[in-house]
Structure formats: structure tokens, C-alpha cells
């Protein structure tokens, strides 16, 4: 019985990690259709922001995590102005290649600053005992955080004026601008929001994983697969895909090894793409 509870909690944590690393991409790629190959590096920047804030500035961990989205949102806005904006309207491949180049540059810059294996921060202490097992509070906190963030995003895009404008500007920029939406500014804000979300994900993850310049590359593939399998409903679709892919990969990992867990994630995603080319939410009537 205890074992089942512990396995269940572990699945929940995996799902949460997948969701947290994918939400930013869900906004930038799922909603705006910008292929942001540097998404992983935004996770990395968020994780480093938190690490530095804890280690050098000696901020409490909660405050340090909140610094991550602010820094990443700012960097994201700069990136949009410098590289994304000139490429709107060009072939999708161009944006893809430009952000890919950016990802390489940010990776090397991080190595130059932090080295390849910088010291990390510990997981916040505190755990509960379930029978013979202990589970840290933090790994229980992650799923809660992921769900709260998703819910807040849902409210933001569904019920606020900005949310409506952002969706309009993403779906049909020409029509939106004719109707008086300042598409450029709205897109800037939405892109920065996506980057901030990536940063927040990285910040939340930083106490759990080894933060290195290559940390983004570990997650970007999974994040893209999650958003693609999620389909057009970029929030709830990504949530469903995280549950499905994260669940499968965690269970396979526990049965065999992490390696097989990753492979299972990939194979499931590819089979799903073949069966449901429009993603899990392809036939839903909701748009979020």
C-alpha cells in the first residue's frame, strides 16, 4: 500500500516537471506558433538565476525562485525585439534557425560564466514519512505549483482583456491589427510571458536537478513533444499530454531504467502524432 502511494507521488512529480518545463513553450509555440529552440536555455537561465540568488545573494529560496521569471521575461523581451520581430512573416524555418543559434550562444555564454558543473543548491528540507519511505515536501509542492500556474494562465487567457487580445493577435494578426489591436506590443508581451514561464519552471526545478549549462537541452525535446501531442488547446492540451507522457515515462522508468522511460516518452509521443496528427486536443471544441 505504502509502495503504491509512493509510486503515485513519484508519477505526480514527473508529470509536474514535464508540465513546468512545457508551459512556457505552450504559450510561445502552442499559441504564437513561434518555434523557439532557445526555450531550453530560458529554463537554464531561470535555474541559474535561482541558484545565484540563493548562493551569492543569500535570498530565501522562495524569493529566489520568483526572481527567475522576472529575469527571463526581461531577456525574452530583448530577444523578441532583436531576433524574433525581424523574422515575423519569413519562413518558419528562419525563426527556428535563429532561435537555435541563440540557444547555442546562450549555452556557451553560460559555460563561460558558470563552468560545466557549477555547484547547485539543496532541496528545501522537510519530508513526510509514508511507511518505510520518505517523500520530501518539495516534490509534493511541485505538482501543486504546476497546477496553480496552469489555472492562473487559464484565467489570464480566458477571462482577461489581455488574454483575448493575445489570442486574437496570435491567431490572425492582420485581422487583429485592423480591429485596433497593437499586435506588435501584444506579441512582445506574450513572448516575454512565455519566456518568464520557462524561467519560472527552471527556477522551480533548480533545487531538484543538477543545474548546468546543458540543463535546457535535457528538457527541450520533451517539452516540444508535449506541446505537439497536446495539440491546439495549448493549456489543457499540454496539461493532458504532460499527464500522459510524464505518467508513462515515469512508470517505465520505475519498472526498468530512466533510459527506457525516456524512450517510452518518445515512442508514445511519436505514435500519438501518427494516430492523432492534430494532437490530443485536436477534436476538442475548447481553445485553451
Amino acid at each position: 500500500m505504502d509502495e503504491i502511494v509512493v509510486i503515485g507521488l513519484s508519477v505526480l512529480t514527473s508529470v509536474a516537471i514535464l508540465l513546468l518545463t512545457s508551459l512556457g513553450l505552450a504559450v510561445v509555440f502552442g499559441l504564437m506558433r513561434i518555434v523557439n529552440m532557445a526555450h531550453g536555455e530560458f529554463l537554464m537561465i531561470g535555474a541559474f538565476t535561482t541558484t545565484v540568488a540563493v548562493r551569492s545573494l543569500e535570498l530565501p529560496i522562495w524569493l529566489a525562485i520568483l526572481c527567475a521569471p522576472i529575469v527571463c521575461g526581461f531577456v525574452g523581451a530583448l530577444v523578441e525585439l532583436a531576433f524574433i520581430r525581424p523574422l515575423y512573416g519569413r519562413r518558419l524555418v528562419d525563426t527556428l534557425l535563429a532561435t537555435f543559434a541563440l540557444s547555442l550562444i546562450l549555452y556557451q555564454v553560460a559555460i563561460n560564466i558558470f563552468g560545466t558543473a557549477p555547484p547547485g543548491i539543496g532541496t528545501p528540507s522537510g519530508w513526510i514519512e509514508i511507511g518505510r519511505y520518505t517523500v520530501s515536501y518539495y516534490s509534493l509542492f511541485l505538482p501543486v505549483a504546476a497546477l496553480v500556474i496552469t489555472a492562473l494562465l487559464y484565467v489570464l487567457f480566458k477571462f482577461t482583456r489581455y488574454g483575448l487580445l493575445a489570442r486574437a493577435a496570435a491567431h490572425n494578426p492582420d485581422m487583429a491589427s485592423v480591429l485596433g489591436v497593437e499586435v506588435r506590443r501584444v506579441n512582445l508581451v506574450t513572448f516575454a510571458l512565455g519566456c518568464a514561464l520557462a524561467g519560472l519552471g527552471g527556477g522551480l526545478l533548480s533545487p531538484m536537478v543538477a543545474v548546468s549549462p546543458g540543463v535546457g537541452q535535457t528538457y527541450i525535446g520533451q517539452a516540444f513533444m508535449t506541446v505537439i501531442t497536446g495539440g491546439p488547446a495549448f493549456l489543457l492540451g499540454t496539461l493532458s499530454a504532460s499527464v500522459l507522457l510524464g505518467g508513462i515515462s515515469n512508470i517505465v522508468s520505475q519498472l526498468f531504467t530512466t533510459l527506457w522511460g525516456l524512450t517510452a516518452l518518445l515512442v508514445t509521443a511519436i505514435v500519438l502524432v501518427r494516430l492523432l496528427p492534430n494532437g490530443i486536443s485536436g477534436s476538442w471544441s475548447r481553445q485553451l
Partner: protein
Amino acid sequence: MTASTWTTTLGRWTRVAVRRGFLWPTIAVVAVLLLSPLLSTSTELKWTLWLAFGILALSLTLVWGISGIFSFGQNAFFGIGGYTFAVAAFNIYPATGETLSALLIAACVAALFTALLGYVTFYGRVGDVYLAIVTLAVTLILYTVMSSTAGPEYRIGKAYLGGFNGMPSVPGIAFGTGELGYGGLFAFAVCLAGALYIFARFLLTGQYGQILAGIRENEMRMELLGYNVRFHKLGIFLVGGAIAGIGGGLFTAWGTFINPSVFSLQQAALVVIWVMVGGRGSLVGAFVGVAVVQWISDQADKIVAQQTPLILGIMLLAMVLAFPGGIVPAITRWLDRTWNSSKRKLDTIDVAPTPTPRTDTKPESENEGTPLPSGHIMAHHLGKRFGGSVALDDVTLEFGQHNIHAIVGPNGAGKSTLFGLISGQHKVTKGDVELNGLDVTRMPTHQRARHGLGIKLQVPSIFLGLSVQQNIALALNAPRKYKRTRPPATTVFAMIGLLEKKHEAASNLSHGEQQWLEIGMLIAQNPSVMLFDEPAAGMTQEERKRTVELIKKLSIHHTVIVVEHDMAFVRALGAPVVMLYRGNVFRHGSFDELSNDNDVRNIYLGRKRGA
């Protein structure tokens, strides 16, 4: 065989080789081989590596530049080829003393992997960007997977995969007489690269090259002409994967070593940069791009060591922002303009051949006295829903008793949906479609085209980047299962004009001329049923008159169905009219019957019915 027939055969072969561009690569290979004794060992080693990379770049050029499929996976196939070669060589070399079979196995395994990935993405109808991301995700996950194979349990036969550290001391290339030395390996690499280059040229200068160009320019038109686009995409993707796999095998043999870094993001970036620098569509450019980029990064490494990702990133960013077409093509274009040496009308890929119109078949259309058996379309209780909205409710129609049928109806009546269901671009929600007595309801678009269905879309759907002649040639050579021969190209040009513009790029034509070109492709396709979706849209009065005449002429040998808004145009056709309204057939009859019908007039004038 006498000596003279030998020489003529040889002469013919030489001419073919020169025309298809096999001569220069052969000369280049021989020249390099002759000069190779002059090269130092380190140069030979470096150039062998560049050739392995060049083969990899060649594979991306084929897939991306020529066929328009952007794949991040080429270096994954390269890596799989490299690993397979290592595993196979460890197991085969001790027994046979040769590793050529290992290279062959590497190509096959890479091709198999490519085929699986391609099948999922192309047959899942996944979009272009998705393919890029799926291939990249696969590459990254392979990186993670191969990095975690360190334990002794990860063993295939005698080969240990070695995890992050990779597999050292792999046997090199061997023909059964021991491993080749540096010089021998270099000579082998030169011959291999030359052979693969010639193979690529062979593919592209034939009919297949035309098909690939068509797919790059306009997939939908290719399907409407009857080409199996997904199959051909899978085919070239597989060829690209096999070539990348061979490159990977050569890479492993070069360093007698392979590790997971072949699956890294840097490597993925490198391939793209090589191809972009060399020019996406140029086969030679693949090798030139490798040489240029590798030389630059070697030099840069001397100034700032170990900053490869940074340098690559800056190069890639500069390429995308400043030279999206490639550096080598930009330079050649600049040189071209400076010397103004040759006037090239088409700024597309050089490898596209000039098609020779087939004149060996006599068209039936020449004796206009005996019309061909007309086509026949039957829609039976056809319906289509998009999400919650009903585009077509319940339509039963038969076309084919007359030679021309007109369909009218206000916006949103379901006219275009009906065409989409007949051509197979939309999936039927209910009911069925019959074409020439054949149930085609579940048939993919290209199969319907092969059974004699042609369609002219509202917005001209042509191959903008190809010449007028190539556009027509693709339609002439389209695969078909019906008993109608292809008309000679001259007949097509006689009907649509444009003969003097046949070498012009289709994108340079005016809107009206593009409409004519599309009609010309329909004539060349020679289907039994022709659908015209608003053919008069955007045409001048004079052009409309010509179009009516042309449609009447075509109706002698084809069943023509025309959707049109322009009432004068419909009247001039003098055909029975079907009026659709809100997804249903509203009226049937002659033009005069409908135009005197009060309800019809009310709908068209927006008045309330019965008012």
C-alpha cells in the same frame, strides 16, 4: 561487337554523362587521386573528415534544399550510421577481415530508422515544423540514450556501446587485406563521396528530380495531378538517411572512434550551417560549405579556443539574418551580376533538367469529330461538417449526362466544400462519391486524380519556382490509370498560348497567365472529368470570353463542371445549372429557368424569401 559500335556506345554514354553532369565530378575525383601523393598525412586526414561531413551535408541538401523537407535528424542518421558501423565492424572484422559490409549495414540501418521516422511523420500528415522538431527531439533523446549505455550489459555481440565515452579502437575501412592506411582511406573517401555525388545527380537530373522539385514547390498540386506525394517524400527522406548513414560509417572509420557527441545540438547546427553556407539547393555546395565552415572554425579555434558553440551560433545567426539564401550562391550571383556573363532567367536550382516533351503519342483530341467517352461523377447523400458547423448537408447530384455543368450559389452555399469532397481534399462526413463508376469515397486525392479527375482551383495552384515548361511537363508525366494518352506539349501550348514564355518562371507570369497555365496543366493531365472553381475570378472581360470558348472546346472530350459567381459567364456556358443554398441543392434547371425563379432571385439579391 565491332570496335565502331563500341565507340558509338561509348560516345553516347559520354554524352549522357556530360549532359547529366557526371563528367566534372569524375574528373575531380581522378585529379584528387592523382595529386594525393603530394598531400601531407595531416592534410589527407583532415580532408577525409571533411569528405565524411560533406556526405552528411549532401544528404541534408537532398532532403531540405531539393525536396523542401527541413530535417534536424540528418546528424541522428549520421550518428546511427556511425554506431552501426562500429558495432558491425567489431563483430565482422575479426571473422572476415573486411569492413565494407559494415558500411553497407550502416547505410541499411540508418535507412530503416529514417523510414520508420518518415512513415510516422509523412503519413501522419504532420506539418513541416513538426518534422523539424520531431527529428530534433529524436536526436537529443538518442544523445541521452547513448550516453547512458556505459554498463557492460550494453553489448551487441563483441561491441560495447561504452556510454558517454563511446566506442574506441573501431576497425577502420578494410577490404580483407588489413585496414587501409591514411592514404588509402583518403582515396576511398574521395571515391565514395564522388560516387554518392554522382548518384545524387543521377536522381535529380531524371524524372525523379522533377517530381522532387514539384513537391518542394507545391505539394497540393502534385497530389491533384496524381503524384503520391507522401510516398515520394518518404523515398527521398530514406535516400537521405542512407547517405547520412554512409557518411557516419566513414566518420567512425576515420577516427576509429565514435561517441554520443554526434547526436549533440552542436552537430545538428553544424549540418545546417554547412548547407546554408554552400547554398541549400546546390549539391557541390554541400562539400564547399563543409570546407569553408570547417576552415573558418579551425582558424577561429586558434584565436579563441573551445568556444565552438558560440562561434557556430553567431555564424548561424548571421546566415539567417543576412544571407538566408546561402553565401556561395550570394557570391556567385554577385559575380554573375558583375560580369553579366550569362543571362539566366531562372534563379532556381541548377540541377533541374530541361524536360523533353514527349511527342511519340498521338492525342485523341486531334480528331475532334469523335468525342471520347465522357466522365461521370455521382454524389450520393453527401454531407460534411466542420466541427459544429454544417458545410454540406445532404447533396445528391449526378454529373456526366451533359458535357458542361454549372454550379452556382451564394457564399457559404457549399460549392467549394462539394469540390473538396469530390477531389478528396476533405474527408466525407456522410454519403459517398463515385467517379467513373468507381467508389472513391475513401480514396486519397492522388488516386482519384489517377482515375481521371482534374481540378483547377480558385487561386491558381501552380509551381511558382519552376518554368512554364516544367509546370506543363509535370502534368504531362503525371501517373494515370485511365485510358487517355498524354497530349503533345505543342497541343497544350497551342490551346493556352504562353509558348513564347515557356522558359519563364511561373512566378513571373501575370495573374491571368497563371490561371491559363493552370488550365494548361489540366489539359496536359487529360482527365475525363475537369472541375473548375471560379475560373473567371480576377480575369478581364476579354479573358473571360476566351475562357468560355476554351471550356466549350474542352467539353468535347471532357466532362466539365464549373463553379462560378459571374452570371454572365454561366449564361455564356449554356449549360444546365445546379444551385446550392445552405448546403443543399436548391434548384436544378437551365440558366433561364433559374434566372426567372423568384426564390433564386431573392436569395441572390438578399431579399427575404417569399417577400
